[in-house]
């Protein structure tokens, strides 16, 4: 923060960037165009990494609505991702693999899966409504273990340890699978096609959440986070709002789950464990609590960093061939990841978005100091 304070520049910049956001618009546009052409150049690994990041971003936005904006700590996010992923398989699956499947059109299955995740959130929200802070957090952890138990034991629904094949998504006659599709002499496989689907979903989800956060519901959510009693007295139906947010965030998680499933092409129970939930928490904290951009930045950081580190692990400094006793590439990658987590929390208390923050929120953020008092 202090770095912002030493120079009053942000203050000066504030009104301009707010009123006629000329330069920034172009930056955004350029970035977006770049995203559009990437599939023509990047190899599958990168596209897949990108898709993981997009899915993560969608899920993180959902968690940020719940934890960042409404102050309900959730470690059960992975559960709702699982509901989305497996829900999609169950709705879309044709039962050919001997697993329960309704054989619905995949787009409908996707919608239903997201809905299902929402319902799951709604069912849990009464419990959530009674709990606070760390207690809520660990209670939601129970969801993870319930989820894992079901995933491993409800064989004919989940396929048990082996997971389920994910029916490729198809809409308007276009199927998002590896079936050859040449675009400008570039073969479009699953990754290439899904890339655009991912972009669309992320953009839509991001804009929607932003609208919510900046509008009336967002203010009510923050009020619940900051002072629940006052929120009620100001006319906010607290219980209903907390439930609603839980449902909404679960639906985001569900959507992320569907997208992930489509990228993986097979759902595996191991994936939806506690580590995943913690990673999502890490995303919103690292990116910045309570904002959409924070969620997205954090998601990209947390989900890309390990992949990049692993990929270039052999060329990391002071790593040595496995077995020669030194630091193995995998270990080096983990060290860096852990260090990055700590560093960001310590040196960017507001999250990565603070780096790029131009809005006055960021520059005149002093009263975060007074925050201690209302605790």
């Amino acid at each position, binding site marked *: 923060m202090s770095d912002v*304070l030493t120079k009053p520049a942000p*203050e000066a910049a504030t009104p301009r960037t707010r009123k006629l956001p000329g330069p920034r618009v172009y930056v955004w546009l350029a970035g977006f165009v770049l995203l559009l052409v990437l599939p023509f150049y990047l190899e599958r690994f990168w596209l897949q990494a990108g898709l993981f990041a997009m899915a993560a971003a969608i899920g993180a936005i959902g968690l940020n609505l719940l934890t960042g904006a409404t102050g309900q700590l959730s470690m059960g996010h992975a559960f709702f991702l699982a509901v989305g992923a497996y829900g999609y398989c169950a709705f879309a699956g044709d039962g050919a693999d001997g697993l329960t499947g309704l054989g619905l059109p995949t787009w409908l299955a996707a919608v239903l899966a997201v809905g299902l995740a929402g319902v799951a959130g709604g069912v849990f929200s009464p419990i959530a409504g009674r709990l606070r802070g760390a207690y809520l957090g660990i209670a939601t952890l129970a969801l993870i273990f319930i989820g894992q138990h079901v995933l491993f034991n409800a064989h004919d629904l989940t396929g048990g340890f082996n997971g389920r094949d994910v029916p490729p998504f198809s809409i308007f006659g276009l199927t998002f699978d590896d079936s050859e599709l040449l675009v400008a002499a570039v073969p479009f496989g699953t990754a290439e096609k899904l890339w655009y689907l991912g972009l669309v979903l992320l953009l839509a989800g991001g804009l929607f959440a932003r609208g919510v956060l900046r509008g009336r519901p967002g203010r009510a959510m923050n009020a619940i986070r900051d002072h629940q009693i006052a929120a009620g007295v100001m006319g906010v139906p607290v219980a209903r709002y907390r439930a609603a947010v839980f449902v909404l965030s679960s639906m985001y998680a569900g959507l992320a789950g569907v997208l992930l499933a489509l990228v993986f092409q097979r759902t595996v129970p191991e994936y939806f464990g506690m580590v995943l939930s913690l990673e999502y928490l890490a995303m919103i904290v690292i990116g910045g609590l309570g904002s959409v951009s924070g969620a997205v930045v954090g998601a990209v950081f947390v989900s890309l960093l390990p992949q990049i580190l692993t990929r270039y692990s052999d060329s990391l400094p002071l790593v040595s061939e496995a077995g020669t006793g030194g630091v193995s590439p995998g270990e080096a990658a983990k060290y860096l990841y852990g260090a990055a987590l700590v560093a960001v929390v310590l040196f960017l208390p507001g999250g990565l978005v603070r780096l790029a923050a131009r809005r006055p929120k960021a520059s005149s953020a*002093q009263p*975060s100091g007074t925050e201690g*008092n209302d605790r």
Partner: protein
Amino acid sequence: MQGAALTVRDLSASYGPVRALRSVSLDVPEGACVTVLGGNGAGKSTLLRAISRTLAFHGGSATGTVHFDGKPLHGTGADRVVGEGICQVPEGRQVFARMTVEDNLRAGALGARGDRAAKAAALRRVHELFPVLAERAHQRAGLLSGGEQQMLAVGRALMAGPRLLLLDEPSLGLAPLMAARIADTIREINSQGVSVLLVEQNAALALKLAETAYVLEVGEVTLSGNADTLAASDEVRRRYLGVVDEDAAADAGRATAEHPVLTRWEDTP
């Protein structure tokens, strides 16, 4: 317990970009009672925070020198300041809401220099001053009424057996009777030799208690001197003592005319 002198020399403080104090100098002679008057945002609380080294908790920072009993306090930590025997009643009570009244008082005694006996005595003292604190010993402090919390905040400070007492609006939210009792307490403690620096909106009360008074306005000392002479100055009478009740009624009447009128809200979708 023996008081000691506090000397503040061109102390400036700011919260990031916000300047809250501009080279303020002030003295609290040994065993004296000094009051600081000032409107909202004048910087009174900031001044006390700067002395007790707690500005950092509000994202603020200070320059200038503060000496207590000859020792420099600037550049030390809050705990050192307490160790020197300075004790502050913070603005807005700040009781430990989740702890019992009893534990709040125990917490107050943590920085105390006295032995067990001294602490026990202090506790008895506090209980006889504010009997309700004895009755509610095991109630969660956060559940006390506003005034009861204020009593607790003051009582907690007394537990430390300080040499210099910094009071930030001790009468805030207290019923007249209780305010009077606090006043008596301050007077008594002061008479026992404890120096007192009193920030108080209830200027009438403050000026009665203090020998010397300073007036802060937007971070600067604009007036200072003997309390009684200040109390006589009409600037202070108007701004801080308010007007006597007779023309108050009239004043209220005028007020309605003065201020901009708020129109009703008709929703026109």
